[in-house]
């Protein structure tokens, strides 16, 4: 694809922000601003050392998450940064580390170095209290997003009374750490440190000794976190013996572009459909006078779908390539079924965007029927991007209808390419493939038709699938499995939850917490494409049979998670959104449909907090309404509570989509869960 094609400049610019919603550095950009403005005072020396160098990230030794310079612990797993721990050892932050680990420990370690510490703390007892209050208050206000505002208030404090200096960061660390791991345990950190009094000093100093012991270990990881998640051995054993890894591949595109036919054809060619079934489909579709739907019928099984020739819900099929076990998610293209497409295909790792090459159809897919509005080619592309999908295969289908003309293919590539770029797909991550599902050209083998081979020598579709990169899987984090579907097994009569493991791993006999009902259940069997297996890890799409739970408690849209690490169930959220092309502005009080992982819920916008500019800074507070392509911070209230997590903690549970009047009006991420007061 020639890169010289440039889309409208403004369009492109605005979509740059879109980046922030999906890209890996998203989490840090807040800290970037605040952190740079107010260099954090704690661990000053060690930080200064490294902040003079240009790259401002450090990689967590535990989970390899790249954190911003100003963070002293990993944002993902809470592991402390090594340099920080070292500086603590150097005595700079003695009491910092001590307070962090101030859970009662009885080990009678030696009282080394304790001479200095008690003096410091005693002086703090008199005047440190107000400082403490101040810090924790401002923390509450700013909350986790603006960590460093506490740091700035610290700066102010510092001018007044220097001895307090080391005390405040102590408070902060304790608060942050506890907040990160027990969402509602805000007070515990505060309480533990505010309960410091004279006799605690004893313990503190002994803890200091403990810490000194600890520093001999390489992993000084758990100073404060009794609740930290430790992945067990069976979860991590990953370099599997000959088992291919699983790739969730969504097939999206405008209505009638041939998604189901393409999926059906692929399955057939790879021998996944028995001859008998295929024959049956062919015969029946001919009887109905819809011979061309024979392959689509392999996917569209319900009578309604067959009769109308339209896919209505996401169909799931399994196939194997050389590199992957692929889970095909064949989504509906009709605009009325976009909600089904969202709830069915959010789990995708990569996507095939099917485009109808025939004259008029491609245009309808781009600009909607009659050239007004947004076609589903565009809407789906925007949606899959906001699902977090970065790699896209564009299958230009029905090339037979345009006699395999290179001009048409290039035209589509040009038009759609500029749009995809504006959606923030990288050129290098898009593969363009001309094909014809009906005439079996360029699907699993190189094309045979001379009209196509004369100008196309690239990948066939199957090779393109194999060339996709597997996204990284978070096996080491606590289990999260959003339930996509619940089915009662015909044979055993037990309830099974279908879904993709977002993080963590699960095995037979594991205990899981089922949310939102809050019941615990035991995993009885795990099935992957109707073959049972013993272990499933992040990224796998599985059916999990549960024991000890009633079917009514298990609902699509719920989440299975680790019993000790429940996800939040909330109905009041703060979102960071990008408004798409809309005609009716979003106002305070606008009623929308709120989609997050597999749930949808009616919601309304309760507050528009601020418009955000490109760097994510609030540019205008409390605007009257939101228009197309603006970034904003908003609050929404849902009619019913859903399982949700901040985007910074869990990607999958933190992406939200707002729809209204049959169109996607905004995509965004959950910035913060607002704890509801009782009334």
């Amino acid at each position, binding site marked *: 694809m020639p890169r010289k094609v440039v889309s409208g400049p403004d369009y492109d610019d605005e979509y740059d922000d879109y980046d922030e919603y999906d890209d890996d550095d998203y989490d840090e950009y807040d800290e970037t601003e605040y952190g740079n403005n107010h260099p954090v005072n704690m661990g000053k020396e060690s930080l200064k050392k490294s902040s003079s160098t240009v790259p401002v990230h450090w990689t967590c030794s535990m989970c390899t998450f790249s954190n911003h310079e100003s963070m002293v612990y990993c944002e993902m797993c809470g592991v402390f940064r090594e340099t920080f721990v070292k500086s603590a050892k150097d005595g700079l932050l003695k009491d910092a580390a001590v307070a962090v680990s101030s859970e009662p420990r009885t080990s009678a370690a030696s009282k080394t170095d304790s001479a200095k510490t008690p003096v410091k703390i005693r002086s703090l007892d008199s005047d440190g209290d107000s400082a403490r209050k101040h810090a924790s208050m401002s923390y509450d206000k700013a909350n986790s997003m603006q960590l460093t505002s506490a740091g700035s208030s610290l700066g102010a404090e510092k001018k007044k009374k220097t001895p307090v200096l080391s005390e405040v960061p102590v408070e902060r660390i304790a608060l942050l750490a506890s907040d990160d791991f027990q969402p509602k345990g805000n007070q515990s950190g505060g309480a533990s440190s505010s309960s410091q009094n004279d006799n605690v000093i004893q313990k503190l100093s002994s803890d200091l000794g403990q810490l000194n012991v600890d520093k001999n270990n390489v992993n000084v990881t758990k100073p404060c976190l009794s609740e930290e998640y430790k992945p067990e051995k069976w979860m991590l054993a990953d370099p599997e013996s000959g088992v291919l890894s699983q790739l969730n591949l969504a097939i999206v595109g405008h209505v009638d572009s041939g998604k189901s036919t393409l999926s059906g054809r692929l399955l057939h060619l790879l021998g996944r459909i028995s001859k008998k079934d295929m024959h049956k489909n062919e015969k029946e579709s001919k009887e109905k006078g819809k011979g061309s739907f024979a392959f689509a019928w392999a996917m569209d*099984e*319900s*009578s*309604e779908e067959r009769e*109308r020739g*339209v896919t*209505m*819900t*996401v*169909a*799931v099929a399994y196939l194997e390539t050389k590199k992957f076990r692929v889970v095909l998610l064949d989504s509906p293209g*009709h605009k*009325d*079924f976009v*909600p*089904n497409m969202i709830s*069915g295909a959010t789990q995708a790792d990569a996507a095939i965007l099917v485009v109808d090459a025939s004259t008029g159809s491609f245009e309808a897919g781009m600009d909607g029927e009659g050239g007004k509005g947004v076609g589903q080619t565009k809407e789906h592309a925007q949606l899959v991007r906001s699902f977090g999908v970065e790699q896209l295969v564009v299958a230009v289908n029905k090339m037979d209808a345009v006699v395999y003309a290179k001009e048409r293919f290039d035209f589509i590539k040009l038009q759609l390419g500029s749009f995809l770029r504006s959606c923030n797909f990288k050129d290098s991550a898009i593969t363009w493939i001309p094909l014809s599902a009906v005439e079996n050209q360029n699907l699993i083998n190189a094309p045979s038709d001379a009209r196509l081979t004369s100008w196309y020598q690239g990948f066939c579709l199957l090779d393109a699938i194999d060339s996709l990169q597997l996204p990284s899987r978070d096996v080491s984090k606590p289990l999260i499995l959003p339930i*996509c*579907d*619940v*089915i*009662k097994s*015909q044979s055993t009569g037990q309830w099974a939850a*279908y879904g993709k493991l977002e993080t963590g791993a699960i095995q037979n006999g594991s205990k899981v917490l089922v949310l939102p009902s809050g019941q615990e259940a035991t995993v009885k069997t795990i099935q992957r494409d*109707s073959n049972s297996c013993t272990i499933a890890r992040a990224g796998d799409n599985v059916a999990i049979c549960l024991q000890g739970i009633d079917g009514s408690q298990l*609902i*699509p849209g719920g989440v299975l998670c680790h019993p000790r690490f429940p996800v939040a169930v909330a109905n009041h959220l703060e979102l960071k959104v990008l408004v798409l092309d809309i*005609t*009716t*502005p979003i*106002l*305070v*009080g*606008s*009623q929308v*449909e709120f989609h997050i992982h597999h749930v949808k819920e*009616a919601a*309304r916008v309760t507050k528009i907090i601020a418009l955000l500019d490109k760097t994510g800074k609030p540019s205008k507070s*409390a605007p*009257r*309404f939101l*228009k197309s392509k603006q970034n904003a911070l908003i609050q929404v209230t849902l009619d019913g509570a859903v399982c949700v997590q901040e985007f910074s903690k869990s990607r999958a549970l933190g992406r939200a989509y707002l*729809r*209204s*009047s*049959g169109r996607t009006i905004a995509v965004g991420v959950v910035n913060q869960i607002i704890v509801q007061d009782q009334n």
Partner: protein
Amino acid sequence: MKLVHRNLVRNGPGSVKLVPEEEDDLWHAYNLIAIGDNLQAVTVRKVLREVASGGRDAERVKLKLEIVVESVDYDKEGSVLRVRGKNITENDHVKIGQFHTLELELKRPFVLRKEIWDWLALETIQQACDPAASADLAVILMQEGLAHLFLIGRSITATRARIETSIPRKHGPAIAGYETALKKFFEHVLQALLKHIDFEVVQCVVIASPGFTKDQFRDYLFLEAARRDLRVIIENKQRLVLAHATSGYKHSLKEVLDTPGVMALIKDTKAAQEVRALQDFFNMLTNDPARACYGPKHVAIAHEQYAAVQTLLITDTLFRNADIATRQKYVNLVEGVKKSNATVHIFSSMHVSGEQLAQLTGIAAILRFPLPQLDDIEM
């Protein structure tokens, strides 16, 4: 509503005797009765009496009581209006100053006495007593797995039923599960329809959904009606209308009311006018944001300083304010706007459009000319 007797002075004191006849009328009564008014009605009260032997004896007595209203409570499901207040009529059973709650029901007359009958109250009575403008419409709003049944009257939309079932996705051989779940869901909706819709009252039933759910449901309905010999449905086949909606949630109801086919059925009713007015407001906000404003402060400034209001949209909730001064403020605002030759739409908060307006602070206006300076004023 039937007006039996009227004895009042415009903008002065007086009383009216009314008989509510439809559910809507109770809603109007709810809007009429303000705190501080006197209300007289027949009621039943349990009275305790000491018998000569020393024991106590409870007895239910039918009384005519007049109370000074302290709170009004509208129960939209049961269509009863409960008015609580202190007794001011002398009688054998209830002391003066004792609390009593009057229940206003259909077909039970009541007398309402007010110190000031403003034009708004009079207009409410006039509207309530106009028999022509009734549009009883039932809407079944559905999507796979979720259905709402609404009855739309002149000024209230009542949610009669909400059906929610989980429907599995298709899953290879388990496709049967999907079909049975869907059948079961339709059966629930059918039962709700039979239970809540009285074809004597309801003119027509609109079935709305995204996709084909509506067609599927209609087919199911006709099939079952023929099979089970449900006369009501067979006889009223032609009164079932299909319409498109984008979801099964309540807020999609305004899309249904906005579709041309349905619009024709409810053409002159309040519900239709409200939907249209709100749509105009949103269009203006999209195309020329400086010519639309919302929020009490902005609208008040636009009216008082610039006399710029062309169309005023306001919900009736604002008039029901317990604080008389606030109510007066809004009444004056509306009157002032009317005098400046502007259109005023008073939205019923029981309709979807009214609900949506209530979310937007309850007051909004389309302006005659752009006022970009409003943006700078704090809401």
